[in-house]
């Protein structure tokens, strides 16, 4: 999420806001990396993670269904292959396994989406 305060982030333009479906995800190619971007329109939040699902090394997380888990509404995505779910905030696997995905800082400015690498 876009709350990071580190100053030396290398912000890269990823796509336009309307390229990402609301309440869903899309994949962008930034500096050779495949990054999944998710737009939680109801709560006005954006998240970015690696697109690779660590379970079977599939470039698929952006195509997964998004949602939330638990009382504090942890945002998550479910991989389309075997429905393992990952927290979009911490990158931790929420289906009881030890996988971890990378998350990226993300910000929106003038209708454009930027990813921090």
């Amino acid at each position, binding site marked *: 999420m876009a709350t990071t305060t580190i100053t030396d982030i290398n912000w890269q333009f*990823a*796509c336009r806001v309307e*390229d*990402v*479906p*609301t*309440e*869903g995800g*899309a*994949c*962008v*190619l*930034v500096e050779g990396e*495949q990054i999944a971007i998710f737009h*939680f329109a*109801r*709560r006005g939040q954006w998240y970015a993670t690696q697109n690779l699902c660590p379970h*079977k*090394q*599939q*470039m*698929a997380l952006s*195509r*997964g*269904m*998004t*949602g*939330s*888990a*638990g009382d504090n*509404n942890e*945002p*998550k995505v*479910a991989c*389309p*292959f075997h*429905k393992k*779910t990952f927290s979009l905030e911490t990158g931790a696997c*929420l*289906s*009881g396994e*030890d996988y971890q995905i990378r998350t990226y800082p993300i910000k929106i400015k003038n209708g454009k989406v930027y990813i921090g690498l």
Partner: protein
Amino acid sequence: MSESKPIAVVIGNGMVGHRFCEKLKSKGLYRIIVFGEEPRPAYDRVHLSEYFNGKSASDLSLPMTGWFEDDEIVLHLGDPIREIDRHQRIVHSAKGIVQPYDVLILATGSSAFVPDINGIEKEGVFVYRTIEDLNKIKAYAPKAKRGAVMGGGLLGLEAAKALLDLGIPETHVVEFAPRLMPRQIDSAGSAALESSLKALGLQLHLNKVTQSIEGHGHIEALQFADESRLHIDMLVISAGIRPRDELARLAGLTVGTRGGIVVNEKLQTSDKHIYAIGECALAQGMIYGLVAPGYEMADVVATNLSEGNKSFTGWDMSTKLKLIGVDVASFGDPFAAEPDSRSIVFDNRASGVYKRINVSADGKYLLGGVLIGDASSYNILLQTVNNRLVLPPNPEDLILGSRDGASEGAGVMNLPDEALICSCESVTKAAICTAVTEKGVTTMDAMKKCTKAGTGCGGCVPLVKDLITGTMKAGGIYVRNTVCEHFDRSRQELFDLIKLHGIKTYEETLSRWGKGDGCEVCKPVVASILASLWNETIAKQAVIQDSNDRYLANIQKGGSYSVVPRIPGGEITPDKLIVLGKVAKKYKLYTKITGGQRIDLFGAHVGDLPAIWEELIEAGFESGHAYGKALRTVKSCVGSTWCRFGLHDSVSFAIEIEQRYRGIRAPHKLKGGVSGCIRECAEAQGKDFGIIATEKGWNLYVCGNGGSRPQHAQLLATDIDKETCIRYLDRFLIFYIRTADPLTRTATWLNKMDGGMSYLRDVVINDSLGMGAQWELEMQDLVDSYKCEWKEVVGDPELRKRFSHFVNVPRKKDPELEFDSMRGQIKAKEW
């Protein structure tokens, strides 16, 4: 660094050694040095066979969280210990490491027992114990046409199934005893198991003593003592295990006459600084060849080394076979016989189900038993034995199911608190119930995290689920089949609400009756309800669809998609076949005839899907909804137009029905079949609805299912005409769509229905709910509002835009997506 801590050296990094390290490390009192002979860290040997079913070595590896955060634990791999010097308390490794110890733990496991038969050294003879063994088998298998497993025990049958899975056309099992799994099941059980295994394609040879292995250099045949021979070109030996006690012997530790390192209740060997755990240990005169007792041993030693006090006093050897396709279990004393016990037997040869329970002579306690073909009650029966639960007045209910409608889950709540539910992780009933009552755990996922129950072999998962529900009910929490944490409603309640309020979107449904952001469970459920009710194109609310529905195609290994056009009734013109061929060639797709009488084109890039469909639609094809919980195919046989036995035109009827119900979304997929006579070449009785021609009209069957638990469809109506048949089908389908739980096929829906088939017949034929006319109208609405969703996407530039891998470089394909080739076509890369 903690040089001052005592040093524990562990020999063997297998399942038990690994568990021991985890347990000991968590206490933080020792520095741990591990020597493993295998080249890789510990992995899940219990699920080794899954290596042939797509799991990789890394999938099988056991979690090592926190192992290397500090230098409290050191792991030397590929470096076996060669010698133990007990006087100086030093071990010598093959690579020359000399390591002193304060305590030494032998966790060397066992190796496959290889009988001393002439020719055993020949090429093509394997054992089945390590990933390396499996690699060798995998490399050799493509050359083999006929394979055999020596040994019809637990592991042998698992190995035989693996050979089948590897694609060896002919697989044999050779067993010395007169029955299979001689240590676990009785002869009648073996007979039931034999017929199921034969159906899987295994050839069984019992009572066979192998005398020699024949062949020039490599194996060509087995020669038996009865002078018969079996020609094979590959053999897997699974004749038992042999504890790895060679190091212990060399060091002068006491070993059993038939092998195994002798240990006391504390698992100490004859040298009090040396312990033995797992399959190498001979405890109470027994080698425990299962992982759960090994884990218990690991816990006992780790506890005692850390100022605790525990003993190992034996373990229950009940087992459930993991063979895919046939349930086999034995528990307690499977062979108990009169006069101490009486047995109750249920034997249905036709369905391959055999169940035997042994009850104490006074009828009070369960002693043990055997389950073949249906082991669904294994967990609860095992618990009943282990906890000496007093039996109900009619113990036969335990295997026949209670016939007075008492709830099934009731038994688990009667277990005592200390009943061990998950033996892999030693989780008791009390721990599970407390997690529910005190930590608010209500789902299996949360339970796994909270208690680790169910994270090992997974066998206890059904029991844990029953306990969660049972505890919630007992706590006065009303348990409904709610959809998920975001909706406190059942699917049927949501269906009625959405219909009543005319809701058209997921967003509104969530705002009105849900909370949070939804998830991968409730989104497709609501999407399916919306589609069933309003039949608007699902592409408009793409993000709430299950992933395959979102792209109107099934995702394949690697991330490509498949394309399945509808071929109603399986009838297709030569011209259309040519178009399929041309399109497949142009987009380099793999083609295959499916099990549903149509053609699947695999390997399409997501960005190519709209163009492919544009060409197909141009040629008159439509979506086949292979991706949706919707009507798939209505299979037909050729029927009276050609077949000499055909009574009516089954192809035309199948096409008519497939076109009537195409595109309709339901709680699960729907399949149909129409056969032209009772020879039933369309396999209509294996479908959700099946129609079979009779002299006088058609018979209608409903609620059949293939899949892992096949079930025949049941007769709903006889000798009806086409119109009546369609009317009944309309009612039946709408009733199902309205009331079934998510992802419940018609067979399961019927199984759960109070009153079963007679109730269903009453509703559909006698219109007992008075809903018939309305349901027929609703169905007609759905039929009239059908549109091909691919046609809508192809014609809409906005919708088309969604089909790209990178939104910022729409024309670029996923560079990670690559294919291999096989028999002149592409295939997905292994993962």
